[in-house]
């Protein structure tokens, strides 16, 4: 465990160079979303109401889930490739007495911290505009952490396997963008054609969006369904973690 924390420490020292820009964007972006989507678009959609809630309240949980996905993936593409191919950080770590598990573990804790802290800020901003309707909102940052890991782990494994960055553009075009649009962030999945509805059900993002909406008191919960959503996200994170360990082992140790 101490070994994984030394890897986390490297990530934090490294992050200190860029934290201002990143902290600013994690504060400014939610404000812009709240103003842009929630308030101005909201004023034109159904005179601001979907199923009895304001449009801002409707999209805020989805935006938080979607932000978790984007940060999770953002930390897992170029940074990972750089640490394998350009800076060779992972090689230097593995030459030191760090196991593959400690290296991956330290990185995942860092991703978790990035996602949880950014989504906590996002939650705070939307709460100020009245989008949090339940005390369960407080678990949303943790939920965001799970969503972040569900996406970060498979993308980490991908970044540790492919030779060049073209794969990331592919992921962006054929996974991230469709998921952001069709996972119920901006409008209910039920208004999609049936085929696209099934795509939404497969996407981990939709499960995260539904759970966030329940937690923030926008939609009623259903214990069995909610456990199912959590289990689905945990499955992605767990299977992804296994893939990361495998990819790192192949890359660092022959």
């Amino acid at each position, binding site marked *: 465990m101490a070994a994984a924390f030394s890897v986390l420490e490297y990530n934090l020292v*490294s992050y200190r160079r860029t934290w201002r820009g990143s902290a600013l964007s994690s504060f400014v972006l939610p404000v812009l979303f709240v103003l842009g989507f929630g308030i101005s678009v909201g004023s034109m959609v159904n005179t601001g109401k979907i199923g009895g809630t304001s449009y801002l309240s409707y999209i805020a949980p989805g935006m938080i889930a979607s932000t978790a996905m984007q940060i999770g993936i953002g930390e897992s593409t170029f940074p990972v490739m750089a640490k394998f191919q350009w800076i060779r950080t992972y*090689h230097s770590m593995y030459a030191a007495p760090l196991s593959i598990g400690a290296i991956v573990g330290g990185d995942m804790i860092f991703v978790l911290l990035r996602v949880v802290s950014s989504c906590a800020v996002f939650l705070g901003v939307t709460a100020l505009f009245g989008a949090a309707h339940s005390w369960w909102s407080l678990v949303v940052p943790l939920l965001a952490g799970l969503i972040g890991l569900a996406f970060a782990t498979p993308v980490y494994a991908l970044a540790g396997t492919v030779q060049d960055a073209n794969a990331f553009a592919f992921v962006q075009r054929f996974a991230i963008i469709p998921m952001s649009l069709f996972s119920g962030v901006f409008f209910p999945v039920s208004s999609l054609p049936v085929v696209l509805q099934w795509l939404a059900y497969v996407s981990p993002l939709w499960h995260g969006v539904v759970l966030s909406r329940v937690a923030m008191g926008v939609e009623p919960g259903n214990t069995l369904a909610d456990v199912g959503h959590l289990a689905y996200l945990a499955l992605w994170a767990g299977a992804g973690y296994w893939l990361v360990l495998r990819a790192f082992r192949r890359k660092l140790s022959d």
Partner: protein
Amino acid sequence: MPDDLPLIHARGLVKRFGDFTAVAGIDLDVQAGESFGFLGPNGAGKSSTMRMIGCVSRPTEGTLRILGKDPARDGVAIRSKLGVCPQLDTLDPELTVRQNLTVYARYFGIGRRAARARADELIEFVQLTERANAKVEPLSGGMKRRLTIARAMINEPELVLLDEPTTGLDPQARHLVWERLFRLKQQGVTLVLTTHYMDEAEQLCDRLVVMDGGRIVAQGGPRELIERYSTREVLELRFPGDDQAPYAEKLGGIGDRVEVLPDRILLYTADGDDALVDVTGRGLHPSSVLVRRSSLEDVFLHLTGRTLVE
């Protein structure tokens, strides 16, 4: 660990990548306090051997014990006592010189305060004190190498592995690195290095193995190898024209052995000046002449028929 057990012990060590055999069965014993070298051209299997010794690559066959332990079982424990200077830089260019060392120290479980003290000590040792708070990015290749060597020393290792420590450096930077490594050697640190520079091997190694095609073709001390596989002196002759071979035929009987290279002829003999008198006595007039002592390059040429740096 008993004192008589070697730090590195290998028997029949093999590394294969698919059909390609990088290391084709080598035996090694490196004792504490030794300065040991792998000399050979690119592709000889030096780096593959080093990666196995560094416990980041598993032997395909054979026995390997590092510090008396089995890398397959105790990789992490062994690596905590190694210092590694890899062939390609793995420094973080965005961090400062000092941060690169303190962060690395933490991987070894060294406390923050101790890490900082050790970092400052090592920064001074590799003469980078003025750059301690500067980013690594703009440093010269020689400075980065020295910092990598400092990083390899962060855990006061029992064994330091240096994979081509001065490849790609200009002569002045190379001498600075050699001087620091020589200092470590004097302090009794066990150094194991790979190189394709014979002067590096001669300067730093007490004992070395010459590798070619994944095998050890000779081993011994630098002087010992030269005495065994070469003559005392070499007479280098350059003749006008593109083809040196016809001249070589006319040199028969002078010296012990003749090697023809594309641009010159090497005449192996105990006394180069005497041999030159014989050459001119046959009416041959080379456009340039050099008499020098035999080096490890000549040993390699004799053993493999090829030059080290092509």
